[in-house]
């Protein structure tokens, strides 16, 4: 084992990283890939199972049509060709997470091949990632290792298996080797997984929740001595379960590989596991000589042969894809690249669009979400979309301001009320008594009082120094607890001093 890591800058000085990413996406179909069991997350163990997904003798699988369609839509959105004919295969292995002792998967006949995904890096540069394939398979059951100190398999006395997840449709999306990323390899990896997540989310075929395991990423990495053209041995890091971890896993593996190579040692071809707490990777299964899954065509399932008509019908169902939507919103809202990127990174795009759809002007909607509401989200340490306020409610507050019934200060108090669970904006206005005072009678009295309190300022205004009116406006606002219509107050001051 090599103890030290090479400094990242030093790594990219002397080595070129070769990156490959395998992403598993659990589809959100109602039923499993090959049987009619439900797929919901979090049910009691072994309550979403049947003879087929338990691999009981005599049971036969039948392919879920919706899963095939979701797979094809993912392939089409990734600019892949859809294979006109393909079979499932059995991937044979002995491990209790599959009760059949094999996983039904596509192997050399994947449903989608040769595509690409353009991903946007932090500085706005577009990086094209080539897609090798997307294929259908089924998820495995969940193991619980009992007896070991850490809940890990090492040192466990026995294991407990829940097969609710066994057979849930999975799509595995595999990139081609991604060359030329250099020092941006970690960033490219994260940007790719982000773009893929957004794409699949827009298709509505998966929840793509990395925290719940409905999207999982394996990072393949090798280093090639700069300019040598020699491919290094790769490691495969599993268990990379957040966008940040994708970036950190690539960075760590680059530094680790360089340290091993610098020491004149060889990289071991192995599966490693990412450790969330330390941002390091730990050796898992060593692939000693070869993995032998003895794939062969699944005899219990007939080939999948999508007609051109079926493929075109599905192509017609593709929604506006995230990058097209972004370009459209950027144009509609008149945003710079940087402004757009900030909105995307803040997760504000959907919220602003929905607020605009609820009738608010884009500029106002954007300003609320990226300024005041972003501050509230930060203070509560939640994401914007987790704030307890809806785009429609924000749009209503904006409308109240536009109608002169609220000023900005009052509007923020109304938003505070909504966030505090006091109900709809109008109810908060009512309950907190937050209406702008624009009743001239009340305002004139307050203006006269303020002018009388500051005779020198009043004189300046009478002498034509209109700018001095600000002090009187301030006094009136204070006297009315911020509820006065400031514009009207200013008009009245000029009138009274005229």
């Amino acid at each position, binding site marked *: 084992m090599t103890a030290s890591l090479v400094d990242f800058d030093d790594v990219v000085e002397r080595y070129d990283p070769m990156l490959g990413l395998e992403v598993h996406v659990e589809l959100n179909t*109602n*039923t499993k890939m090959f049987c009619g069991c439900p797929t919901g997350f979090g049910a009691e163990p*072994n*309550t979403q199972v049947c003879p087929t997904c338990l691999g009981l003798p005599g049971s036969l699988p039948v*392919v879920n*049509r919706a899963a095939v369609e979701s797979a094809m839509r993912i392939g089409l959105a990734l600019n892949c060709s859809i294979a006109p004919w393909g079979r499932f295969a059995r991937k044979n292995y002995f491990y209790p997470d599959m009760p059949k002792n094999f996983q039904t998967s596509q192997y050399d006949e994947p449903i989608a091949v040769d595509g690409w995904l353009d991903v946007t890096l932090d500085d706005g540069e577009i990086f094209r990632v080539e897609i090798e394939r997307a294929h259908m398979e089924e998820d495995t059951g969940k193991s619980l290792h009992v007896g070991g100190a850490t809940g890990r398999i090492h040192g466990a006395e026995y294991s407990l298996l829940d097969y609710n997840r066994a057979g849930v449709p999975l799509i595995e999306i595999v990139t081609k080797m991604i060359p030329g990323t250099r020092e941006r390899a970690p960033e490219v990896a994260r940007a790719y997984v982000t773009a893929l997540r957004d794409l699949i989310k827009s298709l509505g075929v998966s929840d793509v929740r990395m925290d719940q395991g409905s999207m999982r990423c394996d990072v393949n990495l090798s280093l090639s001595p700069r300019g040598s053209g020699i491919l290094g041995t790769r490691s495969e890091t599993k268990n990379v379960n957040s966008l940040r971890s994708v970036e950190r896993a690539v960075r760590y593996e680059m530094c680790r590989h360089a340290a091993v190579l610098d020491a004149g040692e060889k990289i071991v071809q192995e599966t490693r596991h990412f450790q969330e707490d330390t941002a390091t990777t730990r050796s898992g299964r060593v692939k000693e000589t070869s993995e032998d899954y003895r*794939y062969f*065509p699944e005899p219990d399932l007939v080939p999948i042969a999508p007609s051109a008509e079926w493929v075109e019908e599905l192509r017609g169902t593709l929604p506006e894809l995230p990058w097209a939507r972004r370009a459209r919103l950027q144009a509609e809202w008149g945003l710079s690249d940087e402004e757009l990127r900030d909105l995307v990174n803040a997760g504000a795009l959907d919220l602003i669009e929905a607020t605009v759809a609820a009738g608010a002007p884009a500029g106002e909607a954007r300003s609320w979400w990226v300024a005041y509401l972003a501050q509230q989200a930060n203070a509560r340490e939640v994401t914007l979309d987790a704030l307890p306020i809806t785009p429609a409610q924000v749009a209503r507050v904006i409308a109240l301001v536009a109608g002169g019934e609220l000023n900005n200060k009052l509007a923020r108090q109304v938003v505070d009320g909504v966030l505090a669970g006091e109900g709809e904006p109008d109810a908060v206005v009512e309950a907190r008594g937050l209406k702008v005072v624009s009743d001239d009678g009340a305002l004139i009295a307050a203006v006269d009082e303020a002018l009388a309190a500051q005779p020198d300022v009043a004189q300046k205004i009478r002498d034509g120094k209109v700018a001095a009116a600000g002090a009187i406006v301030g006094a009136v606002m204070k006297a009315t607890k911020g509820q006065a219509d400031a514009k009207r107050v200013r008009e009245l001051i000029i009138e009274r001093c005229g």
Partner: protein
Amino acid sequence: MGTRLDVPTAGRAPGVAAPVIHLLEGPLSAAITRDEVAHLARLARLAVTDAELDVFAGQLDVILGSVARVGEVAADDIPPTSHAVPLENVYRPDELRPGLSQEQALSGAPASEDGRFRVPQILGEEA
């Protein structure tokens, strides 16, 4: 090209598939070696004695040789087949069907605990 039963995947680029084993393709000439039988036995978690290795190597040879005779009658215009019935595109709608209760699911299990199948210690492997 002889029949291959082990398909090395080490060293392949990510996503590049190793060749599928087509037991029904190509002439069979190479005999199955004891090492190959031992390897297959290990993959299948079977304990095989030295004496059995010789027996099985011979028997597997006969089986493969018999199957390979298909290749003698299959002309070039007959593609290898994986299914006996010429069917394609058989699907079911994405509709729930009743399954088993937890009790039913676990009824055939040698051991269970907390609603889960209990299996012996899994050594030296991690999925």
